[in-house]
């Protein structure tokens, strides 16, 4: 098991380096930050001063060298916009994003798993059709659209919930449900389909033959085994969730990392973009790693490979 863990961790290192290189190059391909930071009629002298201050006057290769060397130490340089460490900005906004991500995760698991079980168990019943319909819809509609739609319904029409911002539990409801729409649907569908498969397995039939109650068969034998792929999907989705966070945080003016990212991208705030992209990449890689490890824990056959 230990060997497997170490091997898996080592595999992530080249991915992380490639990500570093990609986000460095991509940000530099996309225009000059000077244009966006200084007013359009700024004098040449001011533009030069800005470049020098932020190391933008040096050759690109040198910039990359400095960047990588610092990044290894967890230093992504100062934000061009805020003139303070990019990592500090990231850390400052992390709690808000985690709050949103965890709420989404909780919603998806707490609603998605029972819904998937019920849907599979009462296969082809009206309940099953409803669940399948709703999940297909949930997955098909873009997050952005959900967000605006829920603001119009619950804030503008009903005036039940605040449309934007954060602070109270009320502020959390709309963004979390919006963000959960895709993930919840996925969890439900995966739960349903794997449970349908396990129900047909021999050991379930054996359990039934032994005279166990329907409940015991379902909970102890079928669901338990069907959960393995669901766990994998949830872990993997946690990485994907971070992408959805960008859209959701912008629509709901949620003060998290996603919003910081999108503003930094628009402003060509290289250090912040790099720090955030790298952070998202690490989350993604780690959640993949977690998925693999969890899988290995739950299914001993994986470890032997």
């Amino acid at each position: 098991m230990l060997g497997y863990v170490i091997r898996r961790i080592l595999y992530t290192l080249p991915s992380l380096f490639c990500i570093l290189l990609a986000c460095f190059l991509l940000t530099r391909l996309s225009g000059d930050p000077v244009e966006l930071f200084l007013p359009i009629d700024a004098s040449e002298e001011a533009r030069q001063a800005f470049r020098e201050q932020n190391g933008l006057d040096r050759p690109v290769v040198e910039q990359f060298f400095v960047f990588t060397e610092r990044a290894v130490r967890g230093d992504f340089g100062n934000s061009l916009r805020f003139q303070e460490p990019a990592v500090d900005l990231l850390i400052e906004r992390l709690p808000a994003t985690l709050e949103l991500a965890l709420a989404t995760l909780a919603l998806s698991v707490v609603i998605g798993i029972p819904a998937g079980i019920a849907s599979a168990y009462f296969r082809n019943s009206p309940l099953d059709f409803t669940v399948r319909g709703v999940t297909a819809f949930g997955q098909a509609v873009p997050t952005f659209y959900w967000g605006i739609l829920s603001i119009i319904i619950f804030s503008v029409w009903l005036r039940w919930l605040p449309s934007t911002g954060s602070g109270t539990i009320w502020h959390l409801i709309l963004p979390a449900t919006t963000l959960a729409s895709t993930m919840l649907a996925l969890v439900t569908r995966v739960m349903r389909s794997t449970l349908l498969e396990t129900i047909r397995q021999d050991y379930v039939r054996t359990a039934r033959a032994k005279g166990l109650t329907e409940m015991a068969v379902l909970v102890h034998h079928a669901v338990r085994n069907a959960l393995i792929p669901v766990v994998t999907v949830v872990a993997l989705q946690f990485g994907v969730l971070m992408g959805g966070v960008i859209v959701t945080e912008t629509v709901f003016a949620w003060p998290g990392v996603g919003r910081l990212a999108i503003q930094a991208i628009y402003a060509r705030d290289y250090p912040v973009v790099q720090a955030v992209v790298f952070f998202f990449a690490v989350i993604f890689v780690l959640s993949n790693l977690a998925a693999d490890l969890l899988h290995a824990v739950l299914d001993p056959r994986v470890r032997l490979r």
Partner: protein
Amino acid sequence: MKINRRTFNAALAGQALIAGILGRGSSAMALTAGTLTIAQGFDPVSLWPNFSTTQEQINVGSAIVESLFWVDPKTGKTEPVLGESYELVDPKTVKIVLRKGVKYTNGEEFNADAVVNTFKIFTDVKVTPAYGRYAAPIDRAEKTDDHTVTLYLKHPYPALHLILSQIYIVPPKYWAEVGGAEGFGKKPIGTGPYVLTEWVRDNRIVMDANANYWGKVPAGIKKLVWRPVPDDTARTNGLLAGEFDIATNIPISAAAQIKAQKGLRVVSVPSYRIFTIGLSNLPEHPGPLHDKRVRQALNYAIDKQAILDSLLQGEGRLLSGQLLRKEQLGFDPAIKDYPFDPEKAKALLAEAGFPNGLTITFKFPTGRYAQDREVAEAVAGMLAEVGVKAEMVSLEAGEFLRQLSARELAPMGFVGLAPADDPDLQWAQYRSDWRYSYLTHPEIDKLIDAGAREVDANKRAEIYKKAAQIMHDEASVLFLYQAVDLYGVTDRVKDFLPRGDQRWALYGMSMS
């Protein structure tokens, strides 16, 4: 399911329960008396107004830190704030008299030392790169006595009031204590009507009224809450939901909905931003646009009124064949825009040697200006009618700015430029050696230089009129329209009047 009385009652009870739980949520977000809540697109990076020229952050910061003067949009006059008056001793020397008995909220005295020190900061291009253009004419500031400062200019400068209303006076001791711009930007101390209470980045900025303010705190506004809401639709919806008093930058498409709701109104302000299509005649961009007749033909080919009416829903003003706005010094009422005349356009093109039309590259931004793509498409469609095939190149906002600045928006590019309210700052952008100027005309250059140093208003106006006539006849740009800024405002807010540069001040505002 059949609805009988029992299920109906159950549903009612359920609804009441939900409303009961959620009701608390709604009371928490309703507007409170005495608190002015403003939603804008960005959270300030710094609360020091001279940190950048971003309007959103100057508006927030200037509730705390005050300037010497303020150009009031109601009167168009330069009104005193921390400065009482200023006068030209000679064309290069300015005497500024300061208000007496004003203290910063940390107890520091507002006096000539504070002003001189602030001028030092303002003219340091490393600290205030964004204000380099305003600082350029300043030589130095000296203290005459505690409440008088003498400002020495490098050359006579007609737009002096712009400098004096652009400089925000910081307390020298506190500034040094917090380590300059960075520290001050996070926790500013000023002489203004409000003090900073709370700043949760990207979420809210809360300010309370300054109990010892030297002037009158806006009546009925005890508290300010600034909320950054980046998405235009979400900001509009928040206003409709009754969460904000003021929502800035409302999309044109939402204006009708706001007007229709009771208790809300739309404040529409003619913007300083004017839209033109640059038609390059620079030597490095050879092509048909070097022929004046082609440039004129393009101007005749566009039905500008139709664009304004349909795409901008009438929210805007057509340019009068010149760059300056009606309110500006040097505007020439005698100059009229090229009328919509496709036949004339075709004739001119034929005369210039293009009887079968021509093909030209047309660059435009997407997502930078209101309806930018739509306007560009309409323009291309109208050009096609007279035989000019525009090859459209759409640019993302950041890339657009880079190309604009690098003179790559050639030969034809859609731009909206919003310089500060002085004819020189408008005209200087067209001087042939300026970074993103797309026209070269020695006589216009000479007139621009003359206008920049002419202190006599009448002579100055004449200079700009002359330049405008040349530019009109040469059809150096394709004249389009002046934009409008839209704000959604609740009825309880009185006298909210932003300027065309999206700046607004709390002076004179009130709330019922």
